[in-house]
Structure formats: C-alpha cells, structure tokens
C-alpha cells in the first residue's frame, strides 16, 4: 500500500479534511507556501487545482482564481517544476484536480509519469468519461500508481454509483447537491442522500464536497461519510489575505 491516500484512510476513517487550492494562486509562487501551511495546520489531503480557462463545473470564485493563476503564468509545465522537490517538505496526500483539455495536450502518459516522479498521489478529472478512462487510460494510471477519483451526485443512480465505486481509486468524491462549486444550496437537505450513500457500503471511502464552508457544514457533511472537501470558501479566504500563513491557520481552525 504505497499510495499516500490509501495509507491515510487505513489509519483515519472519520473527519478527513481535504482542502482545494488553485495552483499559482494568489501569486504564482504561492503554491508551495500554501501547501506547507495547510499541512502544518493539520489538513489531511491537499487538492491542487490545475487552472483552466473554461472550468465548466466551477462557480465564479474558483473560475476567477483560475483566471488569475493563468495570468500569473501557471501551466502544467510550471506546476510540475514547482512540485519537483515538494516531497522533501510535504507528506500529506496530494491530488491534482482539473479539466481534461490541458492534460490531453500535455499527454496522459506524460502527465501520469510526471505525477509519479514528483510524488502526486491522485487526480480528479471531472470531464474524463469513465468509459473512456476504462477503455483507454486505466492501465497508464495504474502503471504509475496514480489514483483517479470519480464523482457521484444526488442524481447518480445506485447502479452507476456501484460502477463508479469499482473504477474509482483512493476515494469517491460525492458532490453534495446538483450544482457547480460555491453555490449555497442547503446542506441540511442532503442528509438523506448522505445516508443513502453510507448504506451502500462502498469499497472506497467517501468525501463530500460542494457547499462546505465552516465547521457546521463540515460536521453535517461528515456524519455519514469519511470526510469533506472545501474549495470555494478557502479560495475566498485567500483572495483578500494580507498574510497567507495566518489566513490559512485561521481558516483551518474555523473548520476543525
């Protein structure tokens, strides 16, 4: 069990905190300082966003952070350069999240190979169809030990959830409501869905995302799951931060 994501869930089954941050945001060279601060404050998983010009599943806050990161000069090439030696300092599992187009252009095998080289543990590519992953790319991801995490939503049928569970590796990312990131749909209404997911007893751990922004929403999301993912609220906290370290410390303390 060499993948850090698997190691984490082997030891911790409840309240796993995954925080998303766009790479190269707020400034190009903030990627590593932000990751270090997240680790220092006890965050369990770091999800690093690969910025894309047209992020269809994201709301305005994450899109704006992507636009800013791109104009800062962030790209996959620059990101892998920044991550070259990051494992000397950072030990928590790290996933790259982003859209398929830049990864396709970079080359799927090249991408997986680079992830393995620098020590990235997993990836989330929401617009990569599961069928195509299975028929074309799965062996490549497995060859380099890169876990690909798939999403489920409240509208996903049980049959499809089971299928996703059989293909997904590391964990399943359960989107709390049918929405883009950063909308304010009420988490309280979603308990029945979380319970339904829990009752399926999936082989993968389940992390819940979309709509978590503080301790109350994190606790609500994690009663029936293994943990949660925070993105938009964290980006908002960084947007106006004068001191990244204290902003991050304050933010994480407000969730845990």
């Amino acid at each position, binding site marked *: 069990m060499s993948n850090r994501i698997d190691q984490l869930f082997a030891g911790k089954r409840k309240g796993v905190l995954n925080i998303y941050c766009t790479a190269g945001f707020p400034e190009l060279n903030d990627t590593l300082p932000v990751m270090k601060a997240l680790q220092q404050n006890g965050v369990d998983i770091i999800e690093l966003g690969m910025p894309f*010009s047209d992020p269809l599943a994201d709301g305005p806050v994450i899109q704006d952070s992507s636009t800013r990161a791109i104009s800062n000069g962030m*790209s996959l090439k620059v990101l892998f350069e920044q991550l070259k030696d990051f494992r000397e300092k950072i030990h928590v599992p790290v996933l790259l999240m982003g859209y398929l*187009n830049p990864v396709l252009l970079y080359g799927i095998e090249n991408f997986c190979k680079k992830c393995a080289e620098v020590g990235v543990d997993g990836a989330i590519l929401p*617009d990569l169809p599961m069928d195509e992953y299975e028929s074309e790319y799965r062996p490549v991801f497995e060859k380099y030990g890169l876990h690909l995490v798939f999403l489920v939503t409240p*509208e*996903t049928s049980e049959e499809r959830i089971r299928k996703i569970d059989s293909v997904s590796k590391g964990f399943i990312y359960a*989107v709390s409501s*049918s929405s883009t990131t950063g909308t304010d749909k009420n988490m309280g209404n979603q308990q029945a869905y979380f319970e339904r997911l829990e009752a399926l007893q999936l082989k993968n751990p389940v992390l819940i995302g979309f709509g978590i922004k503080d301790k109350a929403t994190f606790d609500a999301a994690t009663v029936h799951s293994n943990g949660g993912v925070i993105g938009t609220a964290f980006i908002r906290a960084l947007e106006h931060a004068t001191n990244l370290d204290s902003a991050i410390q304050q933010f994480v303390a407000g969730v845990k």
Partner: protein
Amino acid sequence: MKIAENTFGSKYHVDEKGFYGRFGGAYIPEMLYPNVEELQRNYLAILREPGFQEEFDQLLRDYVGRPSPLYFAKRLSEKYNAKIYLKREDLNHTGAHKVNNTIGQILLAKRLGKTRIIAETGAGQHGVATATVCALMGLECVVYMGSIDIKRQAPNVARMKMLGATVVPATSGSQTLKDACNEAIRDWINNPVNTHYILGTAAGPHPYPDMVTRFQSVISEEIRKQLLEKTGRENPDYVVACIGGGSNAAGAYYHFLNEPAVKLVAVEAGGKGVHSGHSAATTQLGKLGIIHASKTLLMQTEDGQITEPYSISAGLDYPGIGPLHAHLYETGRATFLNATDDEALQAAYELTRLEGIIPALESSHALAKLGQLALKPDDVVVVCLSGRGDKDMETYIRNLPGNTGGNV
C-alpha cells in the same frame, strides 16, 4: 420530412458512441450525466415518433414559413459567371435558420416533461429563436449572452426581452459566445431535473451535434427538391456555408454528405486575418482539444487554455467547431476557406446592391468566397443565406465606404 433516418455506419454520420471519426463524444462532468444521458437515450426514438414529425413539419410550414425559397440570384450569377442559388433561410420567422432547431428541441423538451428552457446566444439569433418558441409553448426561458455581444446586438436583446425571456449577461472570459455557452452549461448543472438546454449549434456533448444537424437537415432536404424542380438535377456542384459552430452548414450539407460530386465549402471567420491574432478560423489555428464537452478542433494556447477568438460577426466568434465539421475538414470531404471582416462587409454590400437582399454578417462570410471557387458557367452553386442583416445594420452603416462617422 425524414429527420430520423438511420444513418449509423455512414462515414460522415455520428456513430453509436457519438463520434465522427475521432471527433465528438460527451466529455461531461458527472453533474451533467443524467441530463445528457436522458437525451442520448431518448432523442432518436422521440424524433421517430409519427406524432413528433407531424407536429414538427406543421410548425415549420405554418409558423416558420417553410419551405424557404431557393432563389436564383441572376445578377450575382452574372457577376461570378455561374448559376448561383441562395437558400433563403433569412426569410424564416425570426430571420435565420436557428428556428428550425429551436422548434425541434422545444417539442423534444415538452415530450421529456421539461418546464424551463435555457440557451446560449452569440449574435442573438439563436436567443431570439429560443425565446420565440418558448413564448409559443408557454415555457420559462433564460438566455445567456456574452456582455460584449449584448452591446453589439442590442436589437436582438430587446426582441428576447419582449418575447418574455430573461437575458443573463455572461461576464467571464472573453464575454462572447463561448462564455455564454459555459454559463448555460453551469445553469444546467444547477437545474438538472426541470430544465432543457436548447443548444443552438452543432457542437456540445453527444447527442447535440447529431440532433441539431438532423433538425437543420430540412435545409438540404428542401434544396434537393427545389433544385430538381428548377434545374432537373438534385445535386448542385457546390454548397457554400459559413461556419462558427456549424449548424447552418451541417443542415445545408446533410443530404449531400454521401454525394462525392457535390463540393462542400465551409467559410470560417478570418477576422482581421488568420494570423493577425484576431481571428476565429478554427481549422487553421486549432488543435485537437475539448470544448463544451466535445472533442474537436479548438483554438488553444500551447498549455491547453482556450483562446479568445475574434470576428466582426458575433455568430462566428467561437474558438471551436462542431465535431462533424472537424471530421469533414480532416477527411477532406469539405473545403475550408476563411473570409476577413472586410471581405464579409464587402460581400454584404455587394449582395445588397445586386439583389436587394441585406444578409446577416455571418452569411456574408459565405458570399465573400464566391470569387475564389474557380467557377465555370455551368456550375450550380447553392449558398446558404443563413440569416438576414437587420441585426447588423449598425455595423454595416458604420463601415459603409465613404462613411466618416456622422449621423446617418
């Protein structure tokens, strides 16, 4: 009409997985899976229902005013020394070909039990056509439009509002068609159950490219019949159409795709020149990529970020191209040309003075390349005149030769 004939297996039609050659597919996030899968599962069966075809045909006839005339343009023919026919989609209700598709999709949406309609629009023609059918059917309508386009297409914005639609500005990115499309897709993600997305062009995730093409294929179906009546032959030598996403071209080509003698000519928006950095000529500038959930040719940076395109015509201002057209380009089945802003304007002024028809700026791109086709006197050429120019009057007047910018 036979919108639902089974064409699987043909080289130029969509395959069972939604691909044209290596282009197409449905690269959607899981949040869109139920909506798109519902369409994929149902669209062909619904299109084949006799009741659906009857209602579609009746509305195209009595409401849209089809068949649209195939007009022999005598003076234009003399100028280019060939037999040039204009397929008059500009005479349709709402002034463009877009309504063929919105009629089809609103009937489909009703059969799927949807109560709310969303759409994207560039020039505003598709937005108007969508708002129109929503008024006709009494359904709620939200149209996303880039904030730049809202400014340059004011008359169409007013029409949509008068028809009862809510027009929402897309303020992200280049604030044009691509971003309007992003916002519509996001709306659909947030409203997965009651909403149908009436996509206006032959792009987007499968089944949209095929579905839109089938609804627009009434254009080529009529061309064949009308040409037979007028010339004694079904097949022209050339079919010429402008291409942004490519819905009017797809409709004009459809019944000729497997007729190799018919030369298909696609004209993209060259903007200020293909290599000027201000262009929307996707096949010349694009590489394989994914835009709006479709794998196709795409204008992008070397890092895979989608490039902001440029064209004087809001309807052609799109960095991608429908997957059918990417396939026609790659296989060489269609010839791709491009017209600059200036060439399109000149073609518009020329048609106006020769034939008394003011074309849409989009359609003017198709007209602009007639001089480059090496036509022979006996050649029969059909140009798809996809829309009328009312919405572009401000641009036309501003750019009139000799106009120094005073009041007109």
